[in-house]
């Protein structure tokens, strides 16, 4: 087990100061008048074999971060080190080869499958693009993949519309694991599914991770789902990482005031528990014109003068726990805080 643990602590993906700005264009000649800072100087690492959960509200940049890591967006700045290799230093041919090792599962099981393709062609496409397998080999592999994700291989000659939402998501998963990737970004992979179907897909993802030794970046806004599946969680707010920590501890003792507010606003499926809720005022500001200093300060119940001017850096305040806040809720987490 210790060898396994050691393996687990090696980073597979290291994100270094990653930035992605989208230009805002105006007028006839498309003058650039500003930038939406979707991902602004984010650094973290995902260890081999772990599931890293990424949470945050809509517009916080979590999907952009996932896609920029995969180079589906070209980063404005920063670098991603994948398995010890810098992606900035790679030529486009190497990058294409690298794509076999990282895949993505999309949110919308309806929009992400080509309606004119047969299921076997959808799942087999990455094999045709990246390998020199014969059509017979591809056929066999597709059948194997389908049974692996719990679909009947006899249905491989059907079209996507003949499948339900949960089954389509399984098709998307089969396509993602077709090339035996090391790393999979699951971008809101279960968010569009109903509760009873969602739990089936979550179980499937956990099973595949154990069997195939996958590393996941699990992006979602459903916090209870993220807690269930993730080893560590990163909380994003307005393009910045606010907090990173092990799931259990982060949920029990959030360090960043935003994490605390986010966790307290989830309605619990238990009418007996009455929690003290931190209701945040106002809305998430626009990432085109983020507030100065700490980006959370206009909505933060603990904001002070310093928060308005100084951007807090993501620092390790307790073992394994990083937070970007001048006044993190450390006392509570250590159990010293008074009531």
């Amino acid at each position, binding site marked *: 087990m210790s060898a396994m643990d050691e393996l687990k602590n090696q980073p597979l993906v290291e994100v270094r100061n990653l930035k992605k700005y989208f230009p805002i264009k105006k007028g006839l000649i498309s003058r650039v008048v500003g930038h939406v800072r979707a991902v602004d100087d984010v650094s973290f690492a995902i260890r081999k074999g772990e599931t890293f959960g990424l949470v945050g509200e809509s517009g916080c940049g979590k999907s952009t971060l996932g896609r920029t890591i995969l180079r589906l967006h070209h980063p404005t700045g920063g670098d991603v080190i994948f398995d010890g290799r810098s992606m900035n230093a790679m030529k486009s041919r190497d990058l294409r080869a690298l794509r076999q090792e990282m895949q993505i599962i999309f949110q919308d099981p309806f929009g992400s499958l080509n309606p004119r393709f047969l299921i076997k062609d959808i799942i087999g496409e990455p094999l045709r693009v990246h390998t020199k397998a014969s059509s017979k080999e591809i056929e066999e592999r597709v059948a194997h993949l389908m049974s692996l994700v719990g679909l009947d291989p006899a249905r491989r000659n059907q079209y996507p519309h003949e499948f339900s939402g949960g089954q389509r998501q399984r098709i998307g998963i089969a396509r993602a694991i077709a090339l035996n990737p090391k790393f999979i970004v699951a971008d809101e992979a279960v968010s569009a599914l109903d509760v009873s179907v969602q*739990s089936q897909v979550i179980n499937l993802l*956990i099973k595949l991770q154990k069997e195939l030794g996958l590393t996941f970046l699990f992006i979602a806004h459903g916090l209870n789902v993220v807690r269930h599946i993730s080893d560590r969680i990163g909380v994003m707010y307005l393009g910045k990482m606010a907090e990173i920590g092990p799931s259990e501890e982060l949920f029990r003792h959030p360090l960043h005031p935003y994490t605390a507010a986010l966790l307290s*606003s989830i309605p619990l499926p238990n009418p007996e528990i009455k929690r003290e809720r931190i209701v945040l005022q106002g809305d998430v500001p626009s990432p085109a014109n983020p507030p100065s200093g700490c980006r959370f300060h206009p909505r933060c119940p603990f904001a002070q003068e310093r928060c308005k001017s100084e951007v807090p850096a993501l620092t390790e305040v307790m073992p394994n726990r990083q937070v970007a806040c001048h006044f993190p809720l450390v006392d509570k987490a250590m159990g010293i805080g008074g009531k």
Partner: protein
Amino acid sequence: MAERVLEVSKLTAGFPTDHGFLKAADNVSLKIDRGETLCLVGESGSGKSVTSLAIMRLLEYEGGFILDGQIKLHDEDLTLKTQEEMIHIRGKKIAMIFQDPMSALNPVFTIGDQIAESLRLHQGMSPKEAEKEAIELLRRVGIPAPEIRIRQYPHELSGGMCQRVVIAIALACKPDLLIADEPTTALDVTVQAQILDLLRKLQDEMGLSILLITHDLGVAAEMADRIAVMYAGTIVEEGYVKDIFANPCHPYTQGLLQSIPGFEGERGSELYTIKGSIPPLTQLPSGCRFHPRCPHATPKCMQEQPGHYAVPGKDHYAACWLHDPAGAANEETGVSRE
């Protein structure tokens, strides 16, 4: 005895198709008292929205109609009204808010115009009075600087703000009943918390009855007095929120509650799943509609549809043969219908 605001009995509604009449809501009975919140919980395709559209008599505009049953608002049967008469009931006595606030608002009219519309139609206010009232309403739903906001268009407001405007429009004429169809599903959790708080506050102030439609059991636990669980067009269980969560009696409710990943419990463990998926309305199973997915299904479940049987708890019913008092395995629970 509390004042009964809405009583739906044996409502069957749906859509005519080539394959015959599709009963999207089949034999649905609901009741809501004054100041009470009833949550209609179910997954997609369970008939929650069709039920609410039928109550509003908006189903006709979607190509469907009410086949059978009564919808009584106080003493009036809404199924007997003409659409002309409904115009004076919708917005005035019953109001509705929808899932997507952006598409519920008209993009070419200002916020102020849209709130004033129902005030002028139902209460005959002058434009001046209506504007004043609109500002007051916006203030009540927690929109800062309402004097400026009424001149703005929906695209200038965020999703949460738009939902507040929709709530202001819905409450403009002080309705008795508010139907909220997934009002927070399109919103982020922190904004959802604000909107739910607002609905609760307004309910206390106005003695409003709310029919809240949601798929989120967390929202239901927080908001509901009573819960009705729908599956494939029928209500499978109904009861007070405490009973439903502490002692769910229908296997579907039990499965639904167990499949939510919780905040307690072991991480990464296998979640409970209900096998299979929701049947399409064109291929409803015979007998109890849940039987192909039910772990307790018996031959009887495949043949006969169960009635609503009383189960432990106040006014708590489940539509499952397991709770049939006539069944040999189950004792009479002693709770009878009113």
